[in-house]
């Protein structure tokens, strides 16, 4: 309908002039249709006057306060509910406006609108209980129970005028409050338990609340005690959250119900037993304890809940349930066999005390010949500790008394355990590999890619170039900062390598590179600086850059490898990559490596030092005979000597030693603990050996540290330095790589040899880069499998670095550290190599770490490798950590009970060695939790004695 223009104009004028007193009479005179017709204009005016703009250095509403008031009134009268809520009505209730308008205009949606506030997190302060009653009384509102409950729950803490107080007496002001409304707080998710949490009266936090109020009114006879008890029980089992449910059961307990009251409520109390909240269950059990022996107690109904109760994770629940079961069995013989039968469920608990109690119940009330009991015990036999088991021998068949557990086979040291890595066979495959190259889908994709571009570069035709466009687009986006979770630093480096590789290809085909170059141009053109570079250099632009200073150390091996390969491609120099894995994830078959080396020799190709080192570190050394024979046959000179030295266990190094990095790496791989005198002249040995082996000295100690505290003094925030003690595992890194001291004739000979052999530009040793020189990790966690894959046969330097970075304290500092440790444990688990001392230390710290997944991984490594780990050493390390209570002992004992115990006879034997060695290191004054550790050790001894696994 068309609106009279004068009214429209008048409306606009009232708003623009902020005529607060005129707006309501004006709107009251308008018909509903006229008000509706104002809406488009009202929206425009609101947008303009209520918008915040930057004025004189401050953000302010464009309109003045009077204009805002006029608009708010108009909103309520003209808008529908959705429009009103989006104009700010969803946040607050304008009581003054409502008071002026409701007598002549109450929209049909008003009641629902007000009730809608109840289900939001925050109930507006204006919606006081008395105001709701008023609106109801005036006929504007039909309050829902939740709205009443939420407003009532805070009403006794509200002063009549303003501020907070404590006024339980207000509840008697309206009859309906205590008769009906109060129960809404028991039936809906009100805030009754926490309504007094932030209430301060006279400068003190209020201690009293609804608990005291309800009890006082009950004692005064204002509330029915019977109903209060019943509602409290029912409310504690209404799927409310833990705190609210717990509060209701506390209320019930505080009322101290008498036995007859409990008997009347037994049905309700029983249903509490399936509550997910232990406080509610225990509250119910305590109440039932008083009446369980009374005549008329529903024993069978209670016994129906026993399986749920005995599987509880709360020890107190299980203890109480067993107590009550005993009472029932003692009192009523008819139930004694059933009690005994049900008690078998308690063997799932790993606590010796609980199991023993259950076993005694069975012993006392169950007949050994009862087949049902025998069946139940047979099902539980696998979970029983030796003490309870001894008690129940007569209930078991002989085959249950010592269960044989299959020994887990440790993975054979065989390269065939690993899947062969397929090589990229043509350009199409390369296209699809590059499309996912930066997704970190597999840790070996980088190797596959490098191998493919070197082999297939000449097979890429002009028309193939465009196929790489999607990958180029992704690489460019990534290069310019479109990073996604899961992508590591290697992915960034790969993007650079790939872009440079494609530019090289584009250069070859000036006519077919249009689409590709357009992409490069469009991305580079996004900034003036890039645009300039692009215009100047075009396809000569390089994208690959050295890793930044924060990640320089750890990523140098790839940096050398990538740069070397790009240099070969640019120089169009033939290249054979030695380090491409042959088996997943990163192993190289030594036979294939020898073939690659032989090809290099035949073609007289120069070996890249880093490529050679990575290839040696990835070489599978467990089955060398075929490779030895092949090396004898097809390799020549120093390479032949080097490979034979690496592969033959007893072979000594034989010069010349020109491939210094190769000899040093081979020696470390072969025996990290041995210094071959033949190699003493290698200049690397200027540095302490631990720099290469990662076998640093270490200690677990308490150390003082300083931190900054913020204190509010004299109206100002001040930094105050404070001191505290922390428990840490410290690795002893040699300072500034001091040279190893030699004496006497050895010193003179070594000096002479080094002077002769030393080269200025000494090829870097890859294992030396396995260090982290930064405060926090950035994306290394996503690269951890690839970092481990650089030297899967030599993981200890990396383990030392990650231990120092992420595991030196018993809590992780963040998700990145946690992920890094888990990824390294995963990578190691899949590698099947033996661990040295640093590996044992890494494992010991992982067993004590705060993340359950990481600790479980460490436990799984122990379970698989317990036969080839040094359990005495591992136990000693754990003991050294725990003698200063580096981590809560419970963390370790829980892990042992849940994962490491009773896996097999051999694992139990290994665990005994580990625990003995650990206990030996513990101080005479027992540390917290040591008792449980000793109990486990005793249990192992008993199991061994009885031939149990």
């Amino acid at each position, binding site marked *: 309908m068309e609106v009279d223009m004068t009214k429209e104009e008048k409306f606009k004028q009232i708003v623009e002039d902020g005529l607060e007193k005129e707006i309501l009479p004006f709107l009251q005179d308008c018909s509903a249709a006229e008000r509706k017709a104002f809406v488009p204009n009202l929206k425009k005016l609101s947008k303009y006057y209520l918008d915040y703009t930057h004025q004189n250095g401050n953000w302010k509403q464009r309109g003045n306060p009077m204009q805002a008031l006029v608009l708010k009134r108009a909103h309520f009268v003209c808008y529908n509910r959705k429009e009103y809520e989006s104009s700010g009505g969803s946040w607050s209730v304008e009581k003054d406006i409502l008071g002026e308008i409701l007598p002549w205009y109450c929209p049909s949606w008003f009641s629902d609108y007000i009730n809608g506030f109840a289900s939001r997190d925050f109930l507006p302060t204006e919606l006081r209980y008395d105001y709701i009653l008023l609106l109801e009384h005036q006929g504007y509102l039909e309050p829902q129970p939740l709205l009443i409950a939420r407003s009532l729950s805070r009403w006794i803490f509200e002063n009549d005028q303003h501020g907070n107080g404590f006024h339980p007496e207000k509840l008697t002001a309206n009859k309906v409050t205590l008769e009906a409304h109060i129960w809404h707080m028991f039936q809906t998710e009100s805030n009754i338990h926490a309504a007094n949490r932030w209430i301060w009266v006279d400068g003190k936090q209020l201690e009293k609340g609804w608990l005291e109020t309800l009890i006082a009114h009950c004692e005064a006879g204002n509330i029915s005690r019977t109903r209060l008890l019943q509602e409290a029980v029912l409310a504690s089992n209404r799927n409310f959250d833990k705190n609210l449910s717990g509060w209701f059961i506390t209320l019930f307990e505080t009322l101290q119900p008498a036995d007859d009251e409990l008997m009347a409520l037994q049905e309700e109390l029983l249903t509490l037993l399936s509550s997910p909240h232990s406080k509610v269950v225990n509250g119910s059990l305590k109440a039932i304890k008083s009446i369980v022996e009374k005549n008329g107690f529903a024993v069978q109904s209670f016994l129906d809940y026993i399986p749920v109760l005995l*599987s509880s994770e709360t020890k107190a629940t299980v203890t109480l349930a067993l107590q009550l079961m005993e009472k029932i069995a003692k009192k009523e013989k008819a139930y004694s066999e059933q009690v005994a039968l049900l008690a078998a469920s308690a063997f*799932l608990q790993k606590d010796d005390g609980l199991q023993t109690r259950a076993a005694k119940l069975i012993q006392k009330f169950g007949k050994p010949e009862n087949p049902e009991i025998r069946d139940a015990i047979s099902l539980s036999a*696998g979970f029983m500790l030796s003490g309870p088991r001894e008690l129940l021998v007569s209930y078991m068949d002989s085959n249950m008394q010592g269960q044989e557990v299959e020994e887990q086979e440790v993975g054979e040291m065989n390269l065939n355990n690993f899947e062969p890595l397929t090589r990229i066979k043509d350009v199409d495959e390369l296209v*699809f590999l590059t499309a996912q190259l930066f997704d970190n889908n597999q840790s070996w994709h980088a190797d596959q890619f490098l191998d493919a571009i070197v082999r297939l570069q000449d097979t890429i035709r002009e028309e193939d170039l465009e196929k790489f*466009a999607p990958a180029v687009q992704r690489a460019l986006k990534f290069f310019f900062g479109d990073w996604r979770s899961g992508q590591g630093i290697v992915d960034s480096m790969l993007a650079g390598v790939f872009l440079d590789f494609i530019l090289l290809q584009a250069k070859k085909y000036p006519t077919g590179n249009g689409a590709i170059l357009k992409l490069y141009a469009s991305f580079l053109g996004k900034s003036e600086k890039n645009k300039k570079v692009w215009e100047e250099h075009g396809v000569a632009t390089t994208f690959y850059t050295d890793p930044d200073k924060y990640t320089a150390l750890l990523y140098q091996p790839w940096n050398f490898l990538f740069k070397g390969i790009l240099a070969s491609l640019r120089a169009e120099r033939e290249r054979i990559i030695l380090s491409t894995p042959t088996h997943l994830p990163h192993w190289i078959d030594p036979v294939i490596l020898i073939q690659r080396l032989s090809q290099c020799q035949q073609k007289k190709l120069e070996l890249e030092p880093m490529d050679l080192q990575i290839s040696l570190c990835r070489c599978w050394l467990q089955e060398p005979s075929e490779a030895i024979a092949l090396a004898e046959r097809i390799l020549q000179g120093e390479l032949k000597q080097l490979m034979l030295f690496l592969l033959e266990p007893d072979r000594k190094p034989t010069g010349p030693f020109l491939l210094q990095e190769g000899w040093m790496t081979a020696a470390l791989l072969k025996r990290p603990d041995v210094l071959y005198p033949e190699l003493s002249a290698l200049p690397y040995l200027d540095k302490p050996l631990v720099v290469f082996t990662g076998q640093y000295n270490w200690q677990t100690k308490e150390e003082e540290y300083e931190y900054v505290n913020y204190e509010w003094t004299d109206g100002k925030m001040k930094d105050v330095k404070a001191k505290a003690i922390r428990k840490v595992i410290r690795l002893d890194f040699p300072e500034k790589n001091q040279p190893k001291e030699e004496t006497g004739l050895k010193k003179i000979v070594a000096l002479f040899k080094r002077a002769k052999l030393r080269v200025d530009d000494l090829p870097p040793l890859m294992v030396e880069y396995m260090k982290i020189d930064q405060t926090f990790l950035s994306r290394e966690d996503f690269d951890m499998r690839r970092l481990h894959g650089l030297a899967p046969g030599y993981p200890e330097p990396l383990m030392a670095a990650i231990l120092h970075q992420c595991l030196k304290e018993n809590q992780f500092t963040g998700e990145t550290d946690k992920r890094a440790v888990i990824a390294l444990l995963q990578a190691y688990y899949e590698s099947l190599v033996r661990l040295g001392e640093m590996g044992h230390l890494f494992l010991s710290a992982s067993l004590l770490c705060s993340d359950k997944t990481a600790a479980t991984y460490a436990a799984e490594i122990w379970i698989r490798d317990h036969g080839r780990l040094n359990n005495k050493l591992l136990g000693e390390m754990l003991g050294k950590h725990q003698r200063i209570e580096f981590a809560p002992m419970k963390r370790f004992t829980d892990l042992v009970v*849940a994962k490491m115990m009773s896996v097999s006879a051999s694992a139990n034997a290994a665990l005994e060695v580990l625990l003995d060695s650990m206990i030996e290191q513990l101080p005479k004054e027992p540390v917290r939790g040591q008792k449980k550790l000793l109990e486990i050790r005793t249990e192992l001894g008993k199991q061994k004695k009885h031939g149990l696994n």
Partner: protein
Amino acid sequence: MSDLITYSYNTPSSLLKDQQGDQLFLSNYSEVQKKTNPCFFWGRLKDPHTTARCLIALSNVVQSSFSLSPFEMAKLKDPIVTAGNEKIRFEGFSHCAGVYARVDVLPDGHDGEFIDTGTTNVDFNQPMISSLSRISKSEHMLLSVGSKEVSIIAGNRKVVERKVPLPVKWIKGLTSVQLFLADTEHRFTFNRMQALQLFQSLPSGSVKTDYYVLVRGGRAQFTPVKSAEAVCVGGIHRLKLIAPLLPMADELKVFAHPDMQSTTWQLYFGAVRFSLTISRDSWRGFSGEGAALEELLEDIPQHWVDLTDNYSYANHEFNPTLFALEEDIDMQKLSSITARLSAMGLLGFDVDENRFFYRQLPYKLERILSLNPRLKDAEKLLEEGKVEIVENTSDKLEARVQGSGVKHVVIIEGEKSRCTCTWFAKHQGERGFCKHVLAVKKMNGS
């Protein structure tokens, strides 16, 4: 079609108590049902305690969310019930559509009459769910799905109307998950003690690492270590939803998808079953999985829908062979019939019986077909002429498909399809085909 859906219940569902016992009345609504609020089932539940616990667990599933924003959480998702063939099945999804739960009350689990058959939404309001907690083992309980007599609800009459955004994820999930269920294989059976022990090894908190089910030394446990043929469970914390039911269950069976894209955990309580199916990861909903997409490439004849609708009854086994004979469909295409019909929301799958059963989702068919954006996007690519076949031989189909700023390469060789787009790069076909592959397949009629 509106993207809003209006659930209109004649009255709220409620649990009423009188001297004879409890009466659980479930109010129903379906936008496709032919009669106005029919009564599907009316009768006694033989194990009301267990059934009530299972319904609470189902309610916990539909209220849970493992990856969504509060806005998404606000959408209403009432479970659906299928009554017929002596079975009552309640199905529901989590908000994030990554957890699917179903309660089956089998013929021995009730003593009542199926007045009508069909599938319907039922109102699962919080007061009703809360009151289910108090059902004890010794109680008698009547269940009424829909109102048999007006008098039952007379004292509580109030029309409940809730207009909510169409729960797209939910409906898509309900169609997709059936295909995953159909592919699952039975892997483990645990008795109650073993099941409880297995769940004792559940890690606490929200877990990001994959876990595996392992039986070692006779003990079942979850471990983060992958072993050969192990059942992989991503977002394992979601399994806590069934933990409260374990102490009551006779046994637990674990079913796994061969590619570990989903796992199903089925609990048995006599004549009541509860199954929980979780997606590959907590951030992945079944709705986003493209398992059904390929099956929807070809238009589905309307008379298939009519045929299944006319000749099938709720919860009856669906026999694809019979259907093929009836429709004279090439027997070689038999396997795709069930997939196509379940993708349209016409079939559910029972892993225990290892067969499809008929149940038409209570949503308009047009809605279901319009819910697959990847399929719609593929069709748009074709409409805009952005697909170009460059090679088409008997063993290779190669195409270029215009993407944003680049042309993607799509190569289809036999069963193997590949694309250079980001979606394919990330998921490698595990989550269904990308729109580019779908467009090429559709263009080629394969």
